[in-house]
C-alpha cells in the first residue's frame, strides 16, 4: 500500500479492540513506532494495541504481523475526509 502513498492521502490503522490478544507483534513491527499498548483491558481481559493518532504511513506491517484475522484494518483517506470523520 505504501506504493500509493501520496501526500494528499492519510492512512491510519483501525484496531478491533475485542479481537486483540495483546501479543504486541504490531507494536514491534511498526517502523514508525506509532502503536502502543493500552493500559486497560478489553472485554476478554487482554491488554490491546492502540494507534497513537498520527504518523501512520500505511505500510501494512502491523496488518501482516497480526496473527488475528481481521483485527487490524488500514484505512486510507484523503486529507479532507480525515478532518470530517476521524475522531
Amino acid at each position, binding site marked *: *500500500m505504501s506504493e500509493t502513498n501520496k501526500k494528499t492521502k492519510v492512512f491510519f490503522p483501525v484496531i478491533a479492540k475485542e479481537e486483540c490478544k495483546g501479543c504486541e507483534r504490531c507494536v514491534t513491527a511498526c517502523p514508525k513506532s506509532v502503536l502502543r499498548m493500552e493500559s486497560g483491558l478489553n472485554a476478554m481481559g487482554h491488554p490491546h494495541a492502540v494507534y497513537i493518532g498520527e504518523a501512520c504511513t500505511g505500510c*501494512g506491517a502491523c496488518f501482516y504481523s497480526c496473527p488475528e484475522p481481521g483485527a487490524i484494518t488500514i484505512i486510507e483517506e484523503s486529507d479532507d475526509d480525515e478532518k470530517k470523520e476521524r475522531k
Partner: protein
Amino acid sequence: MEYSNRLLLKGNEAAVYGALLAGCDCFFGYPITPASEIAHSASLLFPRLGRVFLQAECEIASINMVFGAAAAGRRAMTASSGLGISLKQEGVSYMATCELPCVIVDIMRGGPGLGNIGPEQSDYNQVVKGGGHGNYRCIVLAPNSAQEMCDFTVKGFELADKYRTPVYVLADGVIGQMLESVTLPEPVKKPDIPEWALDGSARSRRNFLTSIYLEHDDLEALNQKLQSKYDSIKKAEQTCEKYFLDDAEIVLVAYGIASRVARTAVKKLRDKGIKAGLLRPITLFPFPNDELMKTLGTAKTYLSVEMSNGQMIDDIKLGISCRKPVELCSRMGGNIPSVDEIMDKTIETLEAAK
C-alpha cells in the same frame, strides 16, 4: 542484476535462477540434502535482488510462511526433499483448499524413513496423488535436466497463478545435483498483485481465507469446485516427450534421471532392431493419458522404468485402462538402473508378451 545468458549450474541452482526470472518474491525454506543448494543459492541471490529469503525453524513453518506470502499476492516458493515434503503436506493441503498459488521443489532422496541421500523417485505417490489430507491434487512437473529445472520452475509459477493451486517441481537427487549448462530464459514481467490478495485495506477484507467449512454442503461444494478445476487441468495441461513411439512394440515410461538412461537404452535397442520407444511424462499430474492411449495401436507391452517400488506403474495401467501388460523395471535405495539392465528387462518383457 546483470547476468550471462548461459551458465554452468547445478539443477538446484537452476531452479533458483528460474524462480528469480519468474518474479518470485520470497523463498522460505529449510535446507536438506540433496536440496540444500536451493536454499544456499536463494540465500545468496534473493537478498541481492531485493527479494526475501528466510530460513525457517522447520519445514512446517516454511510452508506456512509460503501460505502467508501467497495470501498477500506474492509469488513464493519453498524446496525440500522427501522427508521435508512429508512435513509440508499439511500446509500444502491448506493452500490447495484456499486456492493459493506457490511452487514447491522436491528433490527426492532415498527412503523410507531417514533413508539416505542417494537419488530415488519414491516421493511419487505423496506428491502426485495429493499427499496430504483431503481431496486435492497438485500440478506436478518432472524435469530431467538442469535446463528444465530452470524452465519448469518458471512454468510452475505460471501454472500456479493460472489455476491458483500449488505446483510441484519433482526431481530426483541426480537432477538436483548434476552440473549442466543452462541457458537462462528472458525474465518474466513481474505480475501485479492479484485482485484476491490480502493487503490490510478495508477493500481487501472480503479476501479473507478460510479452510474450515462446518456446513457439510458448503464443504462438498468447495470439493466439487476443486474437482472441476482438476478436470480442466487434466484436459489442458498434459505434456510429455515422445521418443520413437510411432511404431514402438514396447513402450518404456520413465521420468527424471531414469528417463535419460531409458532414452539411451531405447536408442541402443533400436540399433539392434528392437522396436522400443520412450514416453517421458513431463507433467505427472496430469498424467499424459492421451498420448499413452495413442501408443496402444502398436504397443504389445509397457515397461515402467522408475527408481521406486512401482508407484508410477499404477498410473500407466490406468492410462491404458489395463489393456496391455505393464511390467516394472525398478531400482531403489539410491541406485540408478543401468542401460544394460533396462535393455535386458525390455527384451525379456517383449519376448514374454509375444
